[in-house]
Structure formats: C-alpha cells, structure tokens
C-alpha cells in the first residue's frame, strides 16, 4: 500500500535533485560563457580546444561520464569519491558544452551592427562584449537556458545509479518497501514536472517579455 507517509518520505529526495540540477547549471554557466567566447575569438588558437570539449560532451552519455568519474577516477581525483559531486560535475561539464552553444547562437543573433557601433565609440572587443553583446545575448539565450535547466533536472535522475539520495532513488526505495509499482514512479514523474515546468516556463516568458521590451529578435 502506498500511503501519505510514503509520499512525504519520497519528497525528501527533492532537495538533492534541486541541488544537483542547480549546482550543475551554475557550473555549466561558468564554463559555457568562456567556452563561447573562446570559440568566438579563438585566442592562441584555443578554438579547437573548445570544439573538442563540445564534441566530447555531445558524444558521451552523461551517465557514462558519471560512472567514469565516480568509479573510475575517484582514486585520482578525491572529490569524485562523493557520488553527489561526481553527478554534479558530470552534468555541469556537459551543461557547459551545451550552454556554450546556446550562448554562441545568442551572440550571433545580436548582430554585427551592434559590434560596429561599439567599435565606433572606441571600445575594444572585450569592452564591446561585456557591455553591448553579452547583455543582449543573455536575454536571447533565456529560453534556451530554460530548456537546459529542465534537461538537468531530469538528467539528475541518473545520479540514482551512483546511489545519490535524490528523487528517483527515493521513489525506488518506496517501490521496494511498499511493493507498489505504479505510485512511487508516478508521483516522482509528477514532481519532476512540477519542478521543471515553472522554471522553464518562467525563463521562456521572461525571455519573450524582455525581447519585446528591447526590440530584440
């Protein structure tokens, strides 16, 4: 029998799901912007490094990265002894590659004319990026970032395999304890939607609102 107590117990997985998702998003953001800029400018020929990073992250299942970190590399890199951190870093690294693509597209959408106007004022490339291109690109990127957060929230469920006590793991525990096969996963599914929908939807709408306000395309 699946009871209300089971439901409350299951809820205890939510904080870890949120923590993995948002920490990996932050890590991805911190990696994504520099990667986008490196791809754009290719300083010291580093553009290829950015390309390689993106291709590698696009080509490996995130679960495999997690397993590789936690079981394969914990001996070399002590933080990977923690299942939680292995999952977070794996998702964050992949997210950095994805977010760099989102930012690249957004930066290109801002257009040459804005760069030219900034240059005509005497700004160097970095100043132009910092004050003119990136703020606009960020607004254009909002819907894409919303989808990326939703993806991270969902894919944080892979951490279950490493034994992290997040939402999917809790629903599995409840399934085993209650022998109820439907409800634990169904409730988990509903909880995932309840988390992803508002976040993604909010960023979508914020993006559209700001785009209209600033006349961005």
């Amino acid at each position, binding site marked *: 029998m699946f009871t209300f107590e089971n439901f409350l117990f299951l809820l205890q997985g939510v904080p870890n799901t949120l923590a993995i998702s948002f920490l990996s998003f932050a890590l991805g953001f911190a990696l994504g912007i520099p990667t986008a800029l490196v791809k754009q400018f290719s300083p010291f020929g580093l553009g290829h490094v950015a390309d390689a990073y993106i291709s590698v992250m696009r080509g490996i299942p995130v679960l495999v990265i997690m397993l590789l970190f936690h079981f394969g590399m914990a001996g070399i890199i002590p933080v990977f002894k923690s299942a939680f951190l292995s999952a977070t870093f794996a998702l964050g690294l992949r997210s950095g590659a994805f977010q760099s693509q989102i930012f690249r597209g957004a930066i290109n959408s801002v257009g040459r*004319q804005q760069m030219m106007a900034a240059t005509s004022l005497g700004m160097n490339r970095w100043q132009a990026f910092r004050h003119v291109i990136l703020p606009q690109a960020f607004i254009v990127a909002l819907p894409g970032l919303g989808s990326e957060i939703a993806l991270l929230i969902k894919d944080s469920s892979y951490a279950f395999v490493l034994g992290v006590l997040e939402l999917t793991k809790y629903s599995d525990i409840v399934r085993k304890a209650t022998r109820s096969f439907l409800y634990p996963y169904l409730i988990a599914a509903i909880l995932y939607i309840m988390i992803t929908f508002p976040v993604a939807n909010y960023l979508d709408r914020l993006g559209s609102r700001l785009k209209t306000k600033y006349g961005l395309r």
Partner: protein
Amino acid sequence: MGEVILACEGLKKRYGDLWVLKGIDFEIERGQTKVIIGPSGSGKSTFLRLMGLLEPPTEGKIYFEGKDVYGSGLDLNMLRAKIGFVFQEPSLFRHLTALGNVKLGPKVVLKMKDEEAERKAMDALKTVKLEEWAHHYPAQLSGGQQQRVGIARALAMDPDIILFDEPTASLDIELTWEVIDVMKDLARRGVTMLVVTHELGFAKEVADEILFMDDGRIIESGPPEELLKNPKTPRAREFLRRLIGGV
C-alpha cells in the same frame, strides 16, 4: 587654412575580387562640413567605414590630425573614440535606454565617473532635443528619435569629427526633417562633419563642399552652388537630374 583633421591618400578597398574603392584622396579641416553624394553601390558607405577606422584599407593611407593611422602603431581604439559615427542602420544598444546609450562611451572608453558621464550624456541629449526621452528604450522611440540618440551618442564623446552615413535614408519625410535640423544645428556650431546624404537642402545650406562619388572614385567636387547647378561630369549631371526629378 585650418587644421586638417582627417585625410586619406590613394585609398583603395577590395572585397574578394571586387574593387569598391579605386583610389581616393580626401581631406577635411576642423569646422568644415563636407557632403558626399553618389549612386547606390558607388562605395560611399565603404569609404565612410574606412575613414571611421572601422575597417582597414586594402591600399593607401589614412591620416588623423596628420598622423598616419595604420603606419605608426597608433592605438586605433583611441582614435575611433575621437571619430564619431552615425549609421544608417538602427545601431542603438537595444538593452540600454537613450541615456544609457549616450553615457556608455564616456564611461567605458573615456573612463568618466558615473555622474560625470551622465551629465555629459544629458547635455548631448539636450543638443538633440531628447532630454525628455532619456529613460526610454530604443524600441520605444521613433526612427528619427533613434537617429538623434545616435547623434547624441557620438557627440558625448567630444569627437573631433562626426561621420554620418545616410542617417535619414530609412526615415519618413517628417522624421527626416527633425534629424536634418539637428545636423544643421551642429554644422553651424562648428562641429566637423562628413556626411553621406541625398538631402540636397542640407548640402546647400551648410556644406563647404560636395563630393560626387561614382564607381569607387570621387569624380567631382566643389562648393554646393557650383556642383549642384553646374555639374561638370556627365555622370554627376545625370545623377542630379534623376535625384531632383525624382525619377
């Protein structure tokens, strides 16, 4: 004679196989207003972008206040800060208000303190009669207002010269006037201006010289009364006949 601010010698520009500028000699002195006219595709915008140091020439030299711009290791950004540019295309920073647009250059490039940059920007907005619109975003302004903010943005840098590339080409007639009025006002105040425009009224009233550009060359130049009334080259005569006749 006044001090020559901006000049070029044997200026050429090639895009791929296409020579867009085929050898231009030009100079403009402090306080002068010069107007460039010429058919579409003749290279006017390209010439202006080169003189604004937004693109390097393929051949030839550009001089700013007598110094060879690309030949003597000068800091291009420092020179660009002294050359204002008003574009034909909408070029305001869309995420900033009119005031934000105008004060960004003084803050970021001239390193002014916020209050100082703001004062400077408000002065420039007053010059283009837009102080009441300071807190509006570009998307909330008319095309003519946007172009005036663009002019204010250039002015706030205290440039030695401002280049205008058909600033009214994409505007309705009424909006054109408000922009042209501001530009006439600047010319009379002694701002040095190089203007691509087909507003001949503006040229007649304030230009010291009109340059007629065709196929990558300046093929004729002279004071407005002369060039507009008695163009010497058949190309200029034909072009003006069509322009005035509206054909």
